[in-house]
């Protein structure tokens, strides 16, 4: 089945120690998104890739970076995690139709990040 896969499902890191979260997809979608979701809150978009074009949300901290080496994979790098970065990180994909991505986003299961 085509799907969005996130690894690891649970990640523990130390304060200030860089961490990388991984997302892969078999849907062949052009657009990939990273969301941060804190407990009992709505997901918050951090950034997205439209093909190779990187689009950062205005309020995403510089501490968060992303890489997309190919269509299937996208990485979220947190350079110096703080206690406030503990959250669930969700990857999602959608496909381009015409000028803009189609509406429906498909989500992975998320990676829960704990910062000690």
């Amino acid at each position, binding site marked *: 089945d085509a799907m969005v896969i996130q690894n690891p499902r649970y990640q523990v890191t130390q304060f200030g120690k860089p961490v990388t979260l991984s997302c892969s997809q078999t849907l062949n979608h052009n*657009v990939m*998104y990273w969301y941060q979701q804190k407990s*009992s*809150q*709505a*997901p918050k*978009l951090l950034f*997205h890739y*439209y093909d190779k074009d990187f*689009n950062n949300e205005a309020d995403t901290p510089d501490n968060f970076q992303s890489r997309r080496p190919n269509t299937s994979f996208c990485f979220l790098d947190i350079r110096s995690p703080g206690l406030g970065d503990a959250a*669930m990180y*969700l990857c*999602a994909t959608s496909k381009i139709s015409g000028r*803009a*991505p189609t*509406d*429906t*986003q*498909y*989500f*992975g*299961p*998320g990676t*829960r990040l704990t910062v000690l």
Partner: protein
Amino acid sequence: AQTVTQSQPEMSVQEAETVTLSCTYDTSESDYYLFWYKQPPSRQMILVIRQEAYKQQNATENRFSVNFQKAAKSFSLKISDSQLGDAAMYFCAYHWTGANNLFFGTGTRLTVIP
């Protein structure tokens, strides 16, 4: 500004009964989509139902249906014959075709009582 409001932080329903979750949104755009996503305790976000703004007919997916009132900017979700597996956080979301963002509401936690 495009905002999505879910005024019910928590709802509960008896198994086999019907429940309606409310959602309102604010936009000046005419071409957009609305969604309900379900996020069970395992935390994977799953699409429940989708509505195109240009369609007057309300979307239906099995036991799930919406009441889309475009003029009132209201988009409620009705779950019929509620099942234990329906227990989850439900997010209403809005997508404008001119942007990439999904705007989420704050969610409604649904409990299903056996």
